[in-house]
């Protein structure tokens, strides 16, 4: 990994040490293929609803091309706080308890930079979104993945968290509804996790980017439970709920203390989120409910289709209550996740993501995204069925 002695490396050791995403080769394989049906795409297939795009165009027309306040346009922050209160629970003051970020990606990054010191440990359920570990490492802190299991529908267990807690543990990073498993938390799960965080005096970071993609009545955010506001950072954004991934816009809500600290990092590294995009985000919050709910209903129906087909062919998965992922177990095929994904790609031209991309404990599983048309999902399922039949014969 290190450059040879004769050739000096300029790369900082902690960056050189970042994993070079074990599945990059697999991604390149997928990208080189023309006729692939991909269930490997973690973003909505819908183009952003027109009224939101039009709001961005109108903002450009009007000359909304300047920096905004570092925290973000106050009109947008007010709308965000109102939306959060109404949809997720939790009272935040738009003046100092909310910051507009360039995606949840940036929100997570500036938050971790604001709160972590070298050597601090961060607990997070694994398998997890691919950025968590590296983002923690870039703060010279220690990622501590905590295994979740199919028998619990991939909900993290307090006893497993306890086992990994040390005096250096500072943050519990949660992501429910979950990428890659589709797991969600009940009110009781949230209460138990809140209790754990309070007992160990941890800061909770709740990445709720898929919260609007919930297929059952959901319970209020962990951030709104008694005693939790002062130790929770709520991260959410527009990418998934409003199909706005390319806009790069999101927000964080927490105490004034934490938002102030995040603002410092944000101010020096980003200045502010792009102004015409903030105008589009405001439009999404004000008039986007119908479009959001229509997409949600379509995801719900696709979920029904894909879960049934996978279970019917013996790739077991639970019915996920959130996000747009299913995480079927592929152990019955006798293949490991990477081999399964590679062979499925080469033999049937269907792309899924090996579970190991999301952590070692994703072995034995693959992630299928149903942010694809029903026609593509049906085609992919037919091909996976053929693939599995060929394995049984061979």
């Amino acid at each position, binding site marked *: 990994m290190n450059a040879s002695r004769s050739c000096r490396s300029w790369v900082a050791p902690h960056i050189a040490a970042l994993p070079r995403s074990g599945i990059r080769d697999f991604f390149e394989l997928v990208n080189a293929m023309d006729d692939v049906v991909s269930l490997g795409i*973690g973003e909505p297939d819908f183009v952003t609803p027109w009224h939101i795009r039009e709001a961005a165009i109108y903002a450009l027309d009007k000359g909304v091309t300047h920096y905004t306040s570092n925290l973000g346009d106050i009109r947008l922050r007010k709308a965000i706080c109102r939306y959060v209160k109404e949809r997720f629970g939790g009272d935040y003051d738009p003046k100092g308890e909310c910051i507009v970020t360039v995606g949840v990606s940036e929100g997570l990054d500036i938050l971790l930079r604001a709160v972590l010191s070298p050597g601090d440990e961060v607990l997070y359920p694994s398998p997890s979104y691919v950025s968590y570990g590296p983002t923690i490492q870039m703060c010279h802190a220690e990622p501590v993945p905590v295994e979740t299991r199919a028998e619990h529908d991939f909900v993290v267990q307090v006893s497993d968290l306890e086992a990994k807690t040390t005096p250096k543990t500072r943050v519990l990073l949660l992501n429910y509804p979950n990428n890659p498993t589709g797991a969600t938390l009940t009110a009781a799960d949230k209460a138990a996790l809140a209790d754990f965080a309070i007992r160990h005096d941890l800061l909770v970071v709740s990445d709720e980017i898929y919260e609007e993609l919930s297929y059952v009545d959901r319970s209020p955010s962990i951030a709104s439970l008694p005693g939790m506001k002062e130790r929770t950072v709520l991260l959410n954004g527009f990418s998934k709920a409003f199909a706005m991934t390319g806009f790069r816009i999101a927000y964080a809500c927490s105490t004034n203390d934490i938002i102030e600290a995040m603002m410092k990092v944000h101010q020096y590294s980003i200045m502010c989120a792009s102004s015409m995009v903030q105008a589009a985000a405001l439009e999404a919050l004000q008039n986007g409910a119908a479009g959001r709910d229509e997409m949600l209903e379509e995801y719900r129906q696709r979920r029904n289709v894909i879960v049934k*087909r996978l279970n019917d062919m013996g790739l077991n998965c639970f019915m996920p209550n959130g996000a747009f992922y299913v995480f079927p177990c592929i152990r019955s095929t006798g293949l490991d996740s990477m081999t399964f994904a590679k062979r499925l790609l080469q033999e049937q031209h269907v792309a899924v993501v090996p579970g190991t991309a999301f952590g070692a404990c994703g072995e034995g599983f693959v992630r299928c995204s149903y942010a694809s048309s029903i026609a593509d999902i049906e085609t992919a399922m037919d091909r996976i069925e053929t693939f599995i039949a060929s394995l049984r014969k061979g």
Partner: protein
Amino acid sequence: MERNELKTKILALLERNARISTKEIAERLACEEALIAALIDELEKSHVIMGYSAIVSDLANSSEVLAIIEVEVQPERDTGFDKIAERLGKFPEVRSVYLVSGRYDLRLEVVGSSLQEIASFVAAKLSCQNGVKSTATYFMLKKYKEAGITLNGGGEENERLKIVP
């Protein structure tokens, strides 16, 4: 899911794609195919579903001419606009009839094989109906969007990466 909610969802799916199979509807809504078939049957028998049709663009190269005709009528005692609307609807050239709010009363969609054919329908049949006070005819020149569907998808690309973790 209760029956009325199911029916609403079935209608939404059929309105988007009249050729969707009962099997697919059943899979999407996670219920038995037989139940879906029965509900569609009910919707048809109770005339909630009036029929199924294809959405055809101008590319079909048909020589059909389409006109929108605004009709001002004299409503009748007791039946209001209903009788005359039904009567106008009996002409096979008339594809749709709506009662509308605003400057006129009935909005007809009329198809014919040529401009002349529609012109003579208006002159010889429509305007001289009892109760019809005036008409205004608009010939359709080009179709950009119908039933929620835009020709060429409005020129949008919507390209995604093939894989995103």
